[in-house]
């Protein structure tokens, strides 16, 4: 049982929760995630990135978008209530070193998992350029937090309500065309966005790391449900990842696999709280 210490609504469908988890707060590194469950008998296990942690206070921060049954139920919970089960930190931490210039690209809720990575990249001495994308101003999250880290911050919205009116791939392409080009790109967001980020950097040979959000059950390498094709190998995202070389990931297969339970999910999601499903 993990008590919710704090809850904030960041946008219409995005929530932040600070949750008690002292051991996880102490061990976690950038790029890792937890799996949570709202009921140990019938609840499902869903992964969420550890967006931040405070080892002294013994808390971790989760930022999630209410898209379906479990995330919508979670969004209805409040400070003081307890999450039935939380396990982690899971996954291989991000490889952090001084690469030189790192472009961090975050789309939508992907900005949340990107935050600790950008933070760690900055701390390792990199020049950090951040590109943040959202559909509109309303859906943009963590702008101040990212601004505090970034050497340069570029905001893009689909409707131009804030920042540039374009997709994140546009400024990414411009950066790749510069001399010197970035030493590394890190892209986290919807799979389609990551796919096109990887396509954008490929011609410039800018190494591009993506963080995959496949469907998981155990999160410890036991079920293989999270597997993806990387190059000509099969990898388990929960243990070998979640980060992979974006130029090698078979995104089309991954996107297909994410839709495995669309039919069942549409059925099960009758809980209130308006919001679109991705």
């Amino acid at each position: 049982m993990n008590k919710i210490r704090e809850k904030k609504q960041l946008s219409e469908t995005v929530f932040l929760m600070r949750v008690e988890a002292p051991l996880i707060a102490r061990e976690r590194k950038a790029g890792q995630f937890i799996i949570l469950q709202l009921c140990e008998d019938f609840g499902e296990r869903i992964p969420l990135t550890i967006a931040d942690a405070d080892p002294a206070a013994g808390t971790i921060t989760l930022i999630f978008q209410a898209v379906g049954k479990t995330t919508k139920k979670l969004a209805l919970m409040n400070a003081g209530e307890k999450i039935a089960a939380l396990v982690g930190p899971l996954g291989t931490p991000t490889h952090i070193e001084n690469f030189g210039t790192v472009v961090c690209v975050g789309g939508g809720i992907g900005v949340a998992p990107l935050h600790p990575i950008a933070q760690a990249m900055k701390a390792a001495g990199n020049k950090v350029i951040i590109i943040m994308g959202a559909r509109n101003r309303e859906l943009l999250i963590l702008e101040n937090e990212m601004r505090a880290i970034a050497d340069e911050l570029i905001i893009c919205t689909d409707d131009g309500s804030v920042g540039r009116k374009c997709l994140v791939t546009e400024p990414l392409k411009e950066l790749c065309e510069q001399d010197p080009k970035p030493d590394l790109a890190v892209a986290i967001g919807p799979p389609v966005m990551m796919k096109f980020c990887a396509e954008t950097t490929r011609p410039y040979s800018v190494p591009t790391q993506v963080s995959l959000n496949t469907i998981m059950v155990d999160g410890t390498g036991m079920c293989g449900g999270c597997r993806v094709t990387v190059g000509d190998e099969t990898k388990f995202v929960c243990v070998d990842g979640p980060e992979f070389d974006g130029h090698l990931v078979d995104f089309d297969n991954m996107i297909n696999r994410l839709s495995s339970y669309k039919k069942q999910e549409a059925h099960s999601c009758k809980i209130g709280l308006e919001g679109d499903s991705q």
Partner: protein
Amino acid sequence: KERMAIPAQEMPTQDPAERRSNMNEVALGYSPEQARAEALRCLQCKTAPCIAGCPVGIDIPGFIQAIADGDNKKAIDIIKIDSLLPAVCGRVCPQETQCQAPCTVGKVLKSVDKAVNIGRLERYVADWERENRLIEIPAIKPDTGKKVGIIGTGPAGLTVAADIRREGHDVTLFEAFHKPGGVMVYGIPEFRLPKAIVQQEIDALTAMGCELKTNFVIGRTRKIQDLLDEDGFDALFIGTGAGLPRFMNIEGENLVGVYSANEYLTRSNLMRAYDKQRADTPIFDSEKVAVLGGGNVAMDAARTAVRLGAKEVHLIYRRTEVEMPARVEEVHHAKEEGVIFHMLENPKRILSDEKGWVNGIECLRYELGEPDDSGRRRPIAIEGSEFEIDLDTVIVAIGNDSNPLIRQTTPGLETNKWGNIVADENGKSSIDRIYAGGDIVLGAATVILAMGEGRKAAAAMNEMLANI
């Protein structure tokens, strides 16, 4: 002679047509009359060859005689000298290749099927004890102040916990999942091993004062070295099992609709996806399923698919039924439930529609050639024998390797080329104060072997703890 004339007692079972659509246990257990009759079939052989067939050496004629005498309490007490999980092993042991294989009655009647049904009798007395609420919490010796950590709550871990706690040591069990029990809860389905039976074992440990920490992944939440250096554990037992699914590495294996048996069974059993009304975890509504493999895992996956409503379930195995490693009873039950057996066939690739979803499988026919290293005749593909089966789901059940997490996060822990932890005959690993047993040492094996190893390791650990 008289005894030989008593017919082997059939196990009452749920009607196949009915059980196709429920998760309840298939084998219903002997009645007291049946148990007595079956017990009377035992010849009480002086040499008792059956005992040598049991990996933990239970005094089989001893407990059977007690049943014949009507003394169930004595029978269960005899079993419990050597086995801590009789209700489980009586149900899932591959008896026909263990205790029942050398049984004199079977030998005389020239069929292992006619051997004394030792497993069923074991189950009978274990159930009798549980149903009559006679299970006693073992006496615990005074506190020693020593602390033991047990990683993994499968049969190996549970056994070690009981044996070590009895000596008065403090015991903490760590389990990665939200429920303890290992394969007994996430893998083996309810219809073969009711979860309440496993829970009973867990409750007994808690009543003995063992502490249980679920949702705790050793190697992630805490590392082995932290437990020893910072958290004050005097000794550790690693019983993390063989939970890393193997795939075939054929084309199409990552398509939508291809599962490992581990995933399929975990969704259904542990996450209760079969209870569609209440469970949040989804599972495919499959119409036509192929299960690849011929072991217990494959049978469990196939029979689960039947219960989840599949109209056709094909079991594809590249050797013949004789070589199938599954328990004979499971094969028999699977057939009764309508699983279609394809012997001497093996998939070549998995086919999909334009959306990337499974819609079929291409197989090759095989024939048996010369025996290989394992002594089994090697299956050889027949060239040009390709054919297709229409499907929407494929479940890969060709085996499990050991999970590398502990190995990768514990410097100095010796493992072999399969990634299994190397342990000596007492279960001691290459690191002082760290023991290991069960599938993580043996490779995917059986419940009774995991339990047996656990007992050996616990004895060595108790001795070690007494001397520090």
